[in-house]
């Protein structure tokens, strides 16, 4: 009787240990242990062989950046798409993978991090706590509205700025000093 209790407890502790290990360990994804491929539906699937030698197939994976602004091509987290979104593994350096894989993953990343770059600033008008932007981006011309004064325009690197609009859309100014003096002057309000 006592034996079984102790044994059960031991099992549970083992389980617990395993679960904790699962959470705190870092699994790296490389060309050796992972095969990514395109699905017909425009997603990416993954066949992954873990350290224990077990191979798992994922019909679709989610691709997240750990440092979307400061280091977009390193530490790419590959996650289960649904539920908790548990991490399957981490790609330390995107460029270490085959070109084909890199292309595939970059497609997925561009879906997730849609951020048009502002290439021309036609006008910014400020009125009553909102600023109204009229811009041309690499994805087309558009107009959007930004709430003033609560950090919706912020620096994400040297001379690089990110703008959040009312819809939660993001726009990027890749290099402030690439812009014309007139445009910089308009941005003066925010920077």
């Amino acid at each position: 009787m006592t034996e079984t209790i102790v044994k059960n407890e031991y099992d549970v502790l083992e389980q617990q240990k395993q679960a904790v290990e699962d959470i705190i360990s870092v699994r790296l994804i490389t060309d050796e242990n992972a095969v990514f491929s395109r699905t017909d539906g425009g997603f990416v699937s993954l066949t992954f062989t873990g350290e224990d030698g077990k191979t798992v197939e994922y019909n679709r994976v989610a691709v997240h950046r750990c440092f979307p602004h400061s280091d977009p091509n390193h530490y790419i987290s590959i996650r289960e798409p649904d539920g908790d979104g548990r991490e399957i593994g981490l790609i330390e350096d995107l460029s270490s993978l085959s070109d084909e894989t890199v292309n595939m993953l970059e497609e997925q990343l561009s879906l997730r991090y849609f951020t048009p770059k502002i290439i021309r600033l036609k006008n910014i008008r400020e009125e009553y706590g909102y600023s109204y932007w009229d811009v041309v981006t690499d994805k087309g011309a558009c107009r959007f509205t930004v709430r003033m004064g609560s950090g919706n325009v912020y620096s994400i690197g040297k001379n690089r700025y990110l703008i959040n609009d009312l819809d939660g859309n993001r726009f990027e100014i890749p290099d402030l000093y690439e812009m014309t003096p007139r445009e910089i002057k308009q941005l003066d309000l925010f920077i």
Partner: protein
Amino acid sequence: MVDTLKKVIPESVLDALNKRGVETNSINAAVCADMTNDGELKNIYLILTDARLVFALSNSEDDMVFSGASPLRSVSSESIGEFYEYKLDRLTNPKIIDQVVGGLFVVDIDGVETWLCRFSGAKLREMRRFCKALECSITGEKPPDENEDDAVYCPKCGHPYPEKGRTVCPKCMVKRAIFFRILSFFKSYRLRIVFLFLCMMISGVLTSVSPYLTGSVLFDKVLTRDQALPEKLGIPGNFTLMLLLLVLSIAAVQLIQQFVGVIQGRLAAHLVPGVVAKIKGNVFASLQRLSIGFFTRRQTGSLMQRVNSDANEVMGFFIDGLPYLIYNIFTFAFSGIIMFTLDWRLALASFFLLPPLFYVSYRLLPRLWHAHGRRSRTVRTLYALLNDGIGGARVVKAFGQEDHENRRFSKVNDRVRDAEIQVVKYGNRFDIAYSLAREIPSLLVWSLGALLILRSSGTFKLGELITFINFLHMMQGPMHFFSSIFRWWTNSMNAAQRVFEIIDANPEIAEKENALHTDIKGGITLNNISFGYEPNKTILKNISFSVKAGEILGIVGKSGAGKSTLVNLISRLYDVDEGEIMIDGANVKDYSFTTLRGAVAMVSQETYIFIGTIAENIGYACPDASRKEIVRAAQAASAHPFICRLPDGYDTIIGAGGRELSGGERQRISIARAILADPQILVLDEATASVDTETERAIQASLEKLVRGRTTISIAHRLSTLRNADHLIVLDDGKLVESGTHAELVEKRGEYYKLLELQSKALAMRSIED
């Protein structure tokens, strides 16, 4: 349907669709997404008919317009280019996958999970609705009633409101000038203001009289022994008496002016504090009215600054600036009239620089406005940082990051300095322009006047020149004032704009008009609710459960599963995005706030202590509570023993600046608060999270007393605290994964069992090790 359809699809596109065989009458739902598959910003029409899902790419070259921006003139030429369609019977399982920005519209086509379309955050709501419509079409369910969106466009000008729930049209508000709005705060002081106005008028006139007396009258009438004036006064030839009279009248003018000034000062002194207090009170009341979401979106430091210094700044102008502006305008006008009647040539020389001067200020004004806005923004950041650094002093010290904090601070501090310098820089340009406008005319008047005296032999007299010089001298004050009034005005209107932003903000959660005032018994039902703090991050997904009045419901789940969010929804701190929450069979939205908040009390993991005595803190929700009731509540919350040990007992001042209480003590005070409130529905959100085991036992005991006869919703990590729950639900990642009684869930051997087993075994092991 056709009407709502036309809001989404322009007629020209409908025509084009008709030509491709999509009958307008067969359309069941439609939405306009805003991106091609490559992410180009372009209109894409998604149309759901009885049998098909149609995609039509717009050929429009117009700018994409996101929320808040003014819509473009309606384009009649918009038609469609690329066009493809899917038969509905091939499609299953439509869904929206949220992305960092916007989302993907995903459907299984012949069983293959495929993303069909991308869209930005602007379309998230509409796409969700469309997705639901498609789902209903496939499953044959009845689509949910389309509840019309809240007003999105300003009824006056058709401009879209920049933010959902804030029905203030910025465009129309500009017309309703801020200035006059501030004046409305002065309404109740009407009589005083009339007097003030009168005083200013009198002193304005008097000010312009004295240069005339000391100039023309003294030099041309008295000193040149002009006979006309003394004769008129009945003292012919007596110029000594004449001089005496003149000196007396100059003295009298001065005296009256001083007297009027004193009255004016006293009137203003009564006015200022009253109006400032009124504005501050107004802003504070507005803040109280706003929903919790408003505060989480903004930095507290910046809000505090607004309430305080902005009101002062606005008033500074109205109290000190405006009266002097009026006074100076009077002085200016009267002096002008006198000067022109004396000699138009010299008057012209004195005034000719004014128009260009005002033009220059007009041009410089917008820049000054910007510079000021920028300064106040940086100052606000500084305040927030200050809040951060001082509030987090413990962490800063613990990690030895004082230098880092200093650097962080000095960075922002430098920015404040730069912004300040810029303000001074633009201000200086004003000063230069105004000095020029002052000195050049003065030079001109001297030379022109002297020339006139030399040339005109008698018609232009020395006294007139001296009068003019006096006037010019006197006008330096008003001129200087005018140069700074612009600065002042900018500053004050900037502040006013920020103040009104708060006053005009609409609470996202509003009471219904004929809200219910009834007694709540406490039965709670959740029907399929979904909720997210931000539009594209759903925290809770399709949760349904119900609790009978008087029952205890336990909510279990990992951290971040959405437990606290769920209870926030029940007391309506936030409104659900989808589904409904019913209390006693009526929607929570139908209850008045007094009924709802009076019936629900919360003991949460964050305990907030207000500045005041312990007794006041316990009695926070019921200020009429007697001492006896307060002591009894404290006893029930096992707070009484520690309170009695304090030297000042229940009168101990706690909260910011008061006596420090430990986490457990604060928790017990907030439990006492809930006990005293005597709610029908009690929410315990990790009520015993920050106390030691012994205190927890004491609190558990008091809670057990407290929950009797009330509907209780209890969140806990430690499952042992939920052992007397009638019903348990398990949340995982915002979804309800299990529900049932303790016994049922143990039987089921699912998530709950796993959690329970882990905890109890861990506890058992610990006690063996001990």
